[in-house]
């Protein structure tokens, strides 16, 4: 009885440590869907960059982008700018979801989005517009 008890206790402790180790490991990012999203966002970034630089587009605090000053975009390009922003936001939402799913924790999607939102803003280049906690646009 005592032996069985000790073995069971050892098994329980092992489970506990395995869980801890897993929680501290890096996030899994190497999946085909994440690669595809990254590639599409990388290609789109070249087109979005002029709009970020002239302040037409800014980074939202929800981890996306918004057309904040349509007047900064010449009228003929405005529809294109809008669809670029929409496509980027769709890709970003998918990215947050895919990362959560790739790590077996779909419920992390919101926290992953928040983390990305902070990092996108933190990493924004000087001159870009970012949204602050009061939803106001501020120039970095």
């Amino acid at each position, binding site marked *: 009885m005592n032996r069985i008890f000790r073995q069971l206790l050892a098994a329980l402790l092992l489970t*506990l440590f395995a869980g801890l180790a897993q929680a501290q490991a890096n996030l899994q990012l190497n999946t085909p869907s994440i690669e595809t999203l990254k590639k599409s966002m990388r290609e789109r970034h070249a087109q979005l960059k002029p709009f970020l630089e002239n302040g037409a587009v800014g980074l939202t605090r929800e981890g996306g982008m918004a057309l904040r000053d349509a007047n900064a975009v010449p009228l003929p390009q405005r529809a294109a700018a809008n669809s670029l922003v929409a496509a980027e936001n769709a890709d970003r939402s998918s990215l947050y979801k895919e990362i959560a799913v790739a790590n077996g924790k779909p419920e992390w999607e919101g926290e992953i989005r928040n983390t990305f939102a902070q990092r*996108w803003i933190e990493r924004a280049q000087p001159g870009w517009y970012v949204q602050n906690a009061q939803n106001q646009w501020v120039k970095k």
Partner: protein
Amino acid sequence: MKEMLLNKLNLNALLLATALTASACVTINIYFPAAAAEKAADRIIDDIYDAKEGAAKPAAPAPAPAEKK
């Protein structure tokens, strides 16, 4: 009789350990690895932002031929 009492104590301890472990597991499951997520975000953001200068990135130099006399 004494052995039975001991067994009962062990069983109680086992139940307690199980309950503790189970609650610890719940805590782990809701724990969000914020540092790992930040690292992951930075890696992906690097990838996306660097693409604009990516073309200029030099390829890794090919290893020099080892043959030498």
